[in-house]
């Protein structure tokens, strides 16, 4: 995309010469008459953490299961490291998977769980022991090596599952909702641990998640999925700031959407007339549309300013009354009722201790945002 400074080293997807490590080509999966994955194409490069993000039932897990060989593709092709995976059984693939339920072997100790994959490869016993103990210390489970899974906490089980999937040094590691069962604090810690491990080992990760925060922190790139299709692929920044359509804008973070028609269409800006605001909306980027076309404009709550005084610096200003206030500590989120009846969410950072209390219910306020803040999205 044009708004990123392409550096081929860290962004191989912007380098036309780079060969993708994992190629998914027009893959479709049908269960009877139901299409779970529909014509998905995807390139993932070596060393990436690629997140498939979507709600439940969007086909992301099915796609992952096809990558690891648990489901056949109905049509299309999956190529890993130059090898077509058609007809390759799960046990013959150079990939490993960390399951959502962790799927630890309940009758084996932590040590044996981790060693299982290496033993199946027929490695000599002393090498297995060395690699297992390396892995155990990497995930900091040294004290628990002889425990069984049910004697561990959720976070510890999760680390065993991770260790077990990493110990074979797979070319491609797939993680299905890896942090789903952890509480918020542990999640954040583990996220960074995961990224560190990924950097140290240089494994390519494909992560499936429904949690947008997890996807944003972890990934080099995100593929947003809905109804069996990838609707947008891009870096977290691209996905957040330049959502391709309304679904993506709505799914990632919270957003205010204004519907309207283009009344002025120039190379570097558009003006949109909307019934939901009593003023026209100015958007400081060109679109490939025509005058009269119906569009939606997405504005993130944190890019809006709220004030009791008129906002002369802002390109777009609307009047309204505060309907709801949610105090979140680091910021407050206001729901402002506009004259048209539409409500917009405005996030306001609480920079001073008293700041949160200056605006309150029923206050008449001005909501404003700069021309660059809004983005036109397709319906």
């Amino acid at each position, binding site marked *: 995309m044009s708004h990123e400074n392409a550096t081929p080293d860290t962004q191989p997807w912007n380098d036309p010469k780079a060969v993708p490590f994992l190629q998914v080509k027009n893959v479709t999966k049908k269960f009877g008459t139901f299409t779970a994955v529909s014509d998905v194409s995807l390139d993932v490069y070596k060393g990436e953490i690629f997140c498939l993000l979507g709600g439940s039932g969007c086909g992301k897990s099915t796609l992952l299961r096809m990558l*690891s060989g*648990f489901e056949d593709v109905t049509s299309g092709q999956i190529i890993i490291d130059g090898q077509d995976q058609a007809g390759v*059984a*799960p*046990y*013959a*693939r150079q*990939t*490993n*998977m960390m*399951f*959502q*339920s962790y*799927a*630890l*072997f*309940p*009758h084996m100790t932590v040590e044996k769980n981790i060693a*299982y*994959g290496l033993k*199946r*490869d027929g490695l000599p016993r002393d090498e297995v022991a060395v690699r297992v103990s390396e892995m155990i210390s990497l995930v900091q489970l040294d004290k628990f090596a002889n425990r*069984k899974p*049910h*004697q561990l906490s959720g976070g510890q089980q999760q680390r065993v599952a991770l260790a*077990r*999937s990493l110990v*074979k040094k797979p070319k491609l590691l797939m993680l299905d909702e890896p942090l789903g069962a952890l509480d918020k604090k542990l999640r954040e810690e583990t996220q960074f641990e995961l990224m560190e491990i990924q950097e140290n080992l240089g494994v390519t990760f494909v992560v499936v998640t429904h949690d947008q925060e997890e996807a944003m922190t972890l990934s080099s790139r995100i593929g947003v999925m809905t109804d069996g299709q990838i609707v947008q692929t891009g870096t977290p920044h691209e996905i957040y700031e330049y959502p391709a359509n309304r679904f993506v804008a709505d799914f990632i973070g919270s957003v205010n959407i204004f519907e309207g028609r283009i009344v002025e269409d120039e190379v570097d800006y558009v003006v949109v007339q909307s019934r939901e605001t009593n003023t026209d909306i100015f958007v400081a980027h060109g679109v490939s549309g025509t005058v009269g076309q119906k569009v939606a404009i997405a504005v993130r709550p944190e890019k809006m300013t709220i004030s009791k005084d008129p906002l002369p610096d802002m390109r777009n200003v609307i009047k309204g009354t505060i309907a709801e206030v949610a105090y979140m500590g680091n910021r407050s989120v206001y729901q402002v009722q506009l004259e048209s009846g539409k409500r917009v969410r405005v996030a306001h950072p609480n920079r001073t201790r008293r700041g949160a209390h200056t605006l309150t219910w029923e206050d008449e306020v001005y909501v404003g945002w700069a021309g660059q803040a809004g983005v036109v999205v397709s319906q």
Partner: protein
Amino acid sequence: MRGPSTFLKVMGLVGFIFLYAPIISLVVYSFNESKLVTVWGGFSTKWYVELFRDPQILEAAWVSLKIAFISATLAIIIGTVASFVLIRFKKFRSKALLSMMITAPLVMPEVIIGLSLLLLFVAMENLIGWPSGRGMLTIIIAHATFGSAYAAVVIQSRLVDMDLSIEEAALDLGAKPLRVFFDITLPIIAPALMSGWLLSFTLSLDDLVIASFVSGPGASTLPMVIFSKVRLGVSPDVNALATIIIGIVSLGIIVAALQMNRGKKNG
């Protein structure tokens, strides 16, 4: 919390007496000196000595144990295969029918099972000459048939609960399907296999009706011998035998309960 009311205590006691009075009287009378079952003639262990001098009963007990062991083992194998077909295979046309047929012996009267098996064995002998005559083999087959129905029910419930992704994880780590079965699936369903086996074993030891239908000369199980003895009048050595069986069963239950308790503490 208040303790149970007097009414509940009394009812509980009545229930226990109802269940265990016959067994206790049996145990007590097995130590009876007198030959008359209803008259107490003082403490004695002579019926136990008598019992071990009776070759017929010892022979029958040995036959019963052999039949129970082999048929329970067969039942577990058949039950496991049937459970896998029913739980793991995708929907196939006759799945409901198979599922019904597998559990039919649970509800079918024993007389009918026995009779139909007898007719089958006779017809088979006429047609293909196997099984030639009736005896231990036919009882084993018959017991394996209805034992596998019970085993299938027990194993199915365990298989349903098992997380499929555990097997997938093993596949993913490089184990071939057969290896996965022996390394992962079998250990996980082992408790169900064990209880299914014990159930089939007990049912086989206990069975009188089916065995009477399909047995032939020279193959009398313990229940058959006891039943024929009692028809000629209850002799005290049967009491002694029953007491020994109760002792063994109780011991088994206590050991199993202790094992389970230990399992729970670990869990």
